[in-house]
């Protein structure tokens, strides 16, 4: 079996599995402009972000590096940045700062300023014209064969139930092992769901410094939980987990960490940061389906696996927790719960339920999942990619605000 896929080569040696032109609104005012261009020009993607005004420096840095990270993602062919005027705004949010960071990857960047185009109607027309030209140029890049070492895959586990820890997450772990040992990149997150299992996770840290970063991340999150004065069990596990049989946060965490596999953890990164080398990474961040995929896309992941339990998921043909929150990074869904797969098969790409029933080994299931990932990398659509949905996104900013 061939461990290769066909992808779009980029200037800096990374490989895209999709080929988007990214329209980057540098200040919140520009959301509307990039959205309207996006409506007109197929092949473009943009974000509608919640703004930078009145946020402290650390949060502005999160927004800035996340927007830059989205633009640097290998699924992006080229970038059109749109801002108000030259050298304007907070230092971290200046168009020129972001453009230079993106251009250093070798990607084509174009810029437009509202003040120089003299207003909304003109900038909209100019933006459409440039975007059309960029999309045409992107369409002249063709897929080439590449190996596992050029893959960068993220995982989030959601709507966890009892199958997550035994038939779902361990299968992802097997895939991560194959990718990382081949020289590729993988990442996972959800710090709250390490609480109770951190003593196991730290054994996989590649050195003491990384182990200490993991413990510090968990400690900070747990302290934040304690400071609310609330019983965390009323927040996480979520109601759907409890309906699915998970009783405590510790139980959820022990099942969650197995999604990382058995390879050493190379480093701990903050939300929106990019890795400097291949390997396995833990991102210290919130588990939200609206927020975390954006962070993974900024990391540089080409694809995110949403490993779903699903027992607490209502109705036939349920709505998936997220469709487009990866922005330029597609989401694929899987579950280890055969009953959830049967109900949600409109949106779920893969089922490892046979592992649960003892009919298939984790190795075999991992092999099948990797085969599917390689097909998706080569152009096969994920089920949620077949639905036109503009999810809201949120970036992991913590406040306070002023």
């Amino acid at each position, binding site marked *: 079996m061939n461990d290769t896929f066909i992808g779009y080569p980029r200037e800096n040696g990374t490989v895209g599995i999709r080929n988007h032109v990214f329209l980057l609104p540098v200040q919140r005012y520009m959301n509307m402009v990039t959205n309207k261009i996006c409506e007109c020009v197929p092949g473009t993607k943009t974000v509608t972000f919640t703004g930078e005004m009145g946020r402290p420096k650390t949060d502005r840095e999160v927004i800035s590096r996340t927007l830059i990270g989205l633009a640097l993602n290998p699924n992006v062919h080229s970038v059109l940045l749109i801002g108000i005027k030259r050298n304007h705004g907070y230092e971290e949010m200046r168009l020129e700062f972001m453009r230079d960071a993106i251009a250093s990857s070798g990607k084509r960047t174009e810029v437009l300023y509202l003040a120089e185009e003299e207003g909304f109607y003109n900038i909209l027309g100019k933006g459409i014209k440039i975007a059309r030209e960029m999309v045409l140029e992107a369409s002249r890049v063709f897929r080439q064969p590449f190996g596992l070492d050029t893959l960068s895959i993220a995982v989030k586990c959601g709507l966890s*139930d*009892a*199958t997550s*820890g*035994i038939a779902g997450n361990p299968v992802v772990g097997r895939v991560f092992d194959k990718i990382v040992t081949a020289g590729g990149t993988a990442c996972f997150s959800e710090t*709250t769901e390490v*609480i*109770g*299992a951190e003593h*196991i996770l730290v054994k996989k840290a590649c050195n003491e410094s990384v182990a200490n970063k993991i413990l510090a991340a968990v400690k900070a999150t*747990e302290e934040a*939980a*304690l*400071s*609310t*004065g*609330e*019983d*965390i*069990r009323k927040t*996480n596990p979520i109601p759907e987990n*409890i309906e*699915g*049989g998970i*009783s*405590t*946060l*510790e*139980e959820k965490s*022990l*099942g969650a960490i197995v999604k990382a596999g058995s390879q050493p953890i190379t480093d701990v990164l903050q939300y929106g940061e990019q890795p400097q080398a291949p390997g396995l990474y833990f991102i210290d961040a919130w588990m939200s389906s609206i927020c975390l995929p954006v962070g993974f896309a900024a990391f540089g992941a080409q694809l995110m696996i949403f490993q779903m339990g699903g*027992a607490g998921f209502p109705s036939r043909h349920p709505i998936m927790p997220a469709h487009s929150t990866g922005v330029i990074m597609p989401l694929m869904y899987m579950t280890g*719960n055969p*009953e959830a797969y049967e109900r949600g098969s409109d949106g779920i790409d893969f089922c490892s339920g046979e592992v*649960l*029933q*003892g009919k298939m080994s984790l190795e075999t299931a991992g092999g099948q999942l990797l085969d599917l990932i390689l097909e998706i990398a080569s152009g096969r659509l994920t089920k949620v990619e077949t639905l036109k949905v503009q999810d809201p996104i949120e970036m992991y900013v913590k406040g306070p605000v002023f």
Partner: protein
Amino acid sequence: MKEADNIAIAIRQIEAGESVSDTEQKVTVVATETIPFGFKIAIREIADGDLIYKYGEPIGKSVGFICAGQLVHVHNIVGVRGRGDL
């Protein structure tokens, strides 16, 4: 399942009165009530305040006495981490 585990996961719904075993046939228990798919069944007696073990690790502690075969969930066990209310 690990040696230390005092609960097991039902991989299908178990009816009250049914005798069930784990996949390796090491443990057998009779369910005292319905155990829904994916939920936990006590495989031995658990005293009030005892730690609950799954995957060989503690996942919380019991509230009250739990006899073998009973459903184990939020009504009779509690987690201890992240408890700002304690």
